[in-house]
């Protein structure tokens, strides 16, 4: 039984937790990270990084299949899943090594083991007690299921889907959100027949409706099937496969069912409630400065209600360290955090959808322009279509940007600055985007909203 003291004890070494620790030591504080599994958490080992590796392998497959369109002779000859696995694991392990080195270089102890909150200022790991002037809870999230839907056998979650050593012939995906459409996209590129089952009326239902509709069209063209607006009822499985039944009686047969219905917070049996931390459906509510109801205990990352994204986790981790150090960092609202969905075509957005902006500012107070990428040279060269929609308050700032296109993800960085800095289209208009880039489409939409369209009417 030992006791160690730190300015900050961080429970959970995912994106949110390690960012808090890094920023803390930069500010001259001492910090320790307690991690029961692998430093880097969901994002590095089971989330962002390995899925994006699969998605890039899928892109390579698509490029190889389509090469003739560009005058390149190449014969696509299938997927080598062990090669895909080696590539994916190689990326993850090199990033993992880098991250471990980073914390080591910073002198941040990473304590291996399962931690439990045992007091408002202490976490216990086995026999050892880690006392912090402040505690940061960062225990992350897990793949949820639906009531009565048991995971196991042919009914899998994203963790399992990542590691499949074969390409299913036919697969059903429950949930048309980010994770569902990303796996659907990969499997389709790898040659599977895919059906997505989404209870809401649209795929990626959190995006601007025009983006959802374009994704639906694009997926249909790619041969990805989907059922929208009808809820899942039950699934049965046997040696051959699964049969999924919807509430309207419709059934789907497949080799596997991926359950991608969201991520729940990891907060059970960790001592949170015993120490007095209020939970709300398992999540940890905080004030806008990320402090829980117990003074000195903060929460960051996926356990905090709102967007579940790695860069929000980084931001919150940094924020809390600065807050504890007395720096009064600025608050970034969830709506102003960029979101990317890495299916093909990609989706990227920041700020209000057109509908939400109309609700918030009044329908007659907002204008939007959706620039079709058919007018964008670089997109045509890449063989991709889609659009860039920009939403502004009239005589006011840009409040939303919504993009769908191959490679859309990189285009949101600029929009993030525009929205967070409350730029008017008129502020951006004098700075013509480099030609030919996909980013020009954002420029064209902005020029149009500034009343001076160039390659648009």
């Amino acid at each position, binding site marked *: 039984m030992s006791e160690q003291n730190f300015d900050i004890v961080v429970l959970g070494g995912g994106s949110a937790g390690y960012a808090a620790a890094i920023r803390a030591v930069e500010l001259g504080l001492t910090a320790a990270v307690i991690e029961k599994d692998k430093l880097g958490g969901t994002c590095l080992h089971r989330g962002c990084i390995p899925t994006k590796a699969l998605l890039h392998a899928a892109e390579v497959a698509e490029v190889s299949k389509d090469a003739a369109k560009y005058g390149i002779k190449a014969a696509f000859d299938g997927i080598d899943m062990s090669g895909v696995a080696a590539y994916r694991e190689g990326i993850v392990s090199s990033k993992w090594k880098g991250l471990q080195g980073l914390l080591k270089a910073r002198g941040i102890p990473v304590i291996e083991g399962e931690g439990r909150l045992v007091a408002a200022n202490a976490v216990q790991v086995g026999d050892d007690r880690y006392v912090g002037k402040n505690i940061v809870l960062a225990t992350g999230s897990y793949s949820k299921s639906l009531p009565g839907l048991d995971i196991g056998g042919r009914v899998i979650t994203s963790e399992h889907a990542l590691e499949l050593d074969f390409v299913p012939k036919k697969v059903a995906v429950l949930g048309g959100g980010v994770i569902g459409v990303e796996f659907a996209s990969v499997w389709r590129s790898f040659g599977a027949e895919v059906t997505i089952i989404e209870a809401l009326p649209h795929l990626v239902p959190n995006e601007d409706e025009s983006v959802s509709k374009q994704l639906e069209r694009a997926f249909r063209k790619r041969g990805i099937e989907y059922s929208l607006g009808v809820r899942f009822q039950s699934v049965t499985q046997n040696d051959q496969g699964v049969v999924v039944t919807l509430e309207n009686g419709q059934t789907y047969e497949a080799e596997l069912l991926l359950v991608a219905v969201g991520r729940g917070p990891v907060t059970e049996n960790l001592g949170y409630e015993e120490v007095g931390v209020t939970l709300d459906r398992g999540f940890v509510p905080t004030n806008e400065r990320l402090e829980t109801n117990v003074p000195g205990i903060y929460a960051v990352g996926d356990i905090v209600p709102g967007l579940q994204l790695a860069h929000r986790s980084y931001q919150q981790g940094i924020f809390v360290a600065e807050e504890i150090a007395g720096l009064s960092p*600025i*608050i970034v609202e969830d709506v102003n955090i960029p979101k990317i969905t890495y299916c093909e075509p990609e989706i990227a957005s920041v700020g209000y959808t057109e509908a939400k902006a109309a609700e918030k500012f009044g329908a007659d*107070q907002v204008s939007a322009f959706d620039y079709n990428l058919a007018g964008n040279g670089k997109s045509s060269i890449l063989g991709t279509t889609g659009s860039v929609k920009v939403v502004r*308050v009239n005589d006011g700032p840009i409040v939303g940007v919504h993009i769908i296109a191959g490679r859309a993800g990189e285009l949101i960085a600029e929009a993030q600055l525009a929205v*967070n*800095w*409350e730029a008017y289209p008129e*502020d951006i208009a*004098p700075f013509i985007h480099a030609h030919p880039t996909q980013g020009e489409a954002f420029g064209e939409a902005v020029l149009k909203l500034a009343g001076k369209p160039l390659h648009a009417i």
Partner: protein
Amino acid sequence: KPAVGGGSNAPRTAGGSRLDAGRRSPVVSPIVRRIAREHGFDASQLDGSGPDHLVMRRDVESFISDELGSATAPAATSAAPLARST
């Protein structure tokens, strides 16, 4: 040497410009506009030291330190970015 231009990022002295309610100098940086707003004035009422009287960040910052007697922090650290109610 290009015909256009005049070194807009240079730390040229901004010269004690005063607010003039009748003036409408160009402002193109939302950051510059915001720093001024957070200090209670409208940047376009300054006589900018950039090309064609463009109000540069240095103009706003020197006005704040000379006239308002306070130092400026980078815009983002000084306040929450939005009070988005129109």
